[in-house]
């Protein structure tokens, strides 16, 4: 028995305090969405499907559409740019790894509002070159998700001897493209999946950069709608949280499926 481990009672107290910390705001929001005058009803939830309210909620649907496009583009950036770079650093430039790691983890320590100051002039140029479509925000999001995606992918890279696997594949006649797509990627599957899902969650939750660069995304739309219909904003917030939870559970299952297979 590990004598440093907290006792059963202490563990429960910690679980309850932490659980309450997360649960109380969400439960409050949930109760709020059921409020109907002095009583409770599902009227605010039903309003989502009410044709009369469609115009009022239009910003949210538009913002959600933009956010989903942004999430998809960001995931593509992670999979096409970050993952191959990490593999390259691991296989060919291992001495650059610590420098690369600190660079990639940097965005977590830079507040979004500071990032925006630097991004604003860059987006003027991007606007001229590529237009001002909401999807261009993905370049900024590609930076903000770096730390999260990096950790998820690196954990997978460290768990597999990709150096020997790629050398074996090369000796069998595989070119680098085949090595990456058919040998390395399948073995990093759980890490790539986790990185993608975390990126989606981060992008759907991002507000500061979109707001300051005047782009309409899910979170900025929520703020707009809140001013006219606070109930609807709460309902959408809960739905977004539920979606993020579902993503996290999928990430967890993906990780567990892998270790389960290894044990059999």
């Amino acid at each position: 028995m590990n004598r440093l481990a907290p006792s059963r009672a202490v563990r429960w107290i910690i679980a309850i305090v932490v659980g309450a910390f997360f649960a109380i705001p969400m439960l409050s929001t949930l109760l709020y969405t059921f409020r109907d005058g002095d009583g409770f009803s599902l009227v605010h939830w039903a309003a989502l499907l009410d044709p009369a309210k469609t115009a009022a909620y239009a910003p949210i649907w538009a913002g959600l559409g933009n956010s989903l496009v942004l999430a998809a583009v960001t995931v593509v950036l992670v999979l096409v740019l970050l993952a191959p770079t990490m593999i390259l650093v691991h296989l060919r430039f291992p001495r650059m790894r610590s420098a690369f790691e600190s660079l990639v983890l940097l965005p977590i320590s830079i507040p979004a509002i500071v990032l925006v100051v630097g991004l604003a002039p860059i987006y003027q140029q991007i606007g001229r070159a590529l237009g001002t479509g909401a999807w261009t925000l993905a370049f900024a999001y590609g930076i903000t998700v770096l730390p999260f995606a990096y950790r998820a992918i690196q954990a997978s890279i460290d768990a597999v001897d990709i150096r020997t696997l790629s050398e074996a594949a090369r000796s069998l006649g595989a070119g680098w493209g085949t090595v990456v797509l058919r040998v390395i990627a399948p073995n990093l599957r759980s890490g790539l999946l986790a990185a993608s899902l975390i990126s989606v969650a981060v992008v759907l939750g991002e507000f500061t950069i979109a707001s300051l660069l005047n782009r309409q995304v899910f979170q900025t739309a929520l703020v707009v709608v809140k001013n006219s219909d606070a109930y609807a904003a709460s309902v959408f917030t809960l739905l977004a949280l539920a979606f993020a939870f579902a993503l996290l559970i999928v990430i967890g299952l993906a990780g567990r499926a892998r270790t389960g297979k290894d044990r059999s």
Partner: protein
Amino acid sequence: MTTAPLTARALPRTAENSLLADAGTGTRVEFRGIVKDYGATRVLHGLDLDIAPGEFVSLLGPSGCGKTTALRVLAGLEHAHAGAVLLGGTDVSAVPTNRRDIGMVFQSYSLFPHLRVVDNTAFGLLRRKVARAEARRRALDALALVGLDHLADRFPHQLSGGQQQRVALARALVTEPRVLLLDEPLSALDAKVRVQLRDEIRRIQLRLGITTVFVTHDQEEALAVSDRIAVMQAGRIEQIGTPEELYRSPATPGVAAFVGLSSLVPGVADGATVTVWGQSLPIGGDAVTGDVEVFIRPENVRLVSAGGVEAIVQESTFLGSFRRTLVRTLDGAMVRVQHAASERVEYDDRVRIAIDPVPVSVRPRA
């Protein structure tokens, strides 16, 4: 330099023309003046080595002697700073690994974890554009060669270490490569599996007639399977020869110390002979004069009832068909004696030993 895509060189396959059938398709392998540096450290000092078609050559040496680097240069996984590697008379120094048409088995387990055994084995064939059904059939052939066709649908993590290395061997051989490279493939395995697989590799190699380069630090392994052994030391080949040549007449004290078991005893050299305990022995190799240390093989020392030199038994180990006994002579030298198991000796027994008058290696006494 031609960079045409690799083709599987196999003829249309029939029962007679299968992986199991034909031998004698080996390719000549040449290292010419290979120099390799890691930073400021030179790990290969102009390595020259010529390997005949179908030959099994071991690179033997302690860790850090450059043997693995030499193999990796041959595979194209490392680039030499000078010199050339020739396969079948063609300089392949500029050819990338995946176009060298080699088969390689690694020290660490290298099967692709996400592919079944049969798909692992067929990997190289699919890279050579062999049709899927045909690739599967030939993969099963190759698995049969290593006795594992019944495990074709397993995943690598469901196999033992020895089985994984067997599959790796089948995977390396199935494309009928020009040369088979073995990078300490046995060192992760336990002793019994190691000997089995070692002998199996040699059996298959002889059957297929494939040129093979085997890197190992285990002299017993190298002696058991090789046509020739190149003993490497600090980035150079100290001696290359058949196992018998290396064992009987090591060219340098380094080779004598590394190949086989030897005792070091003091002697006085006088040109072509050396005197040990009043007994004159011929020196194998260059003439030496002065105080030397003499390498004595256990099987060249015997227990005698009269003559020889007196010694005290330190320990005696029963090894089945013979005994190996460590004795200490009165002047303090420790000598290993290999003798019949029926000659029982025990700790602290006083015995007399004599050395057979066979050529010995010597080195100057420090």
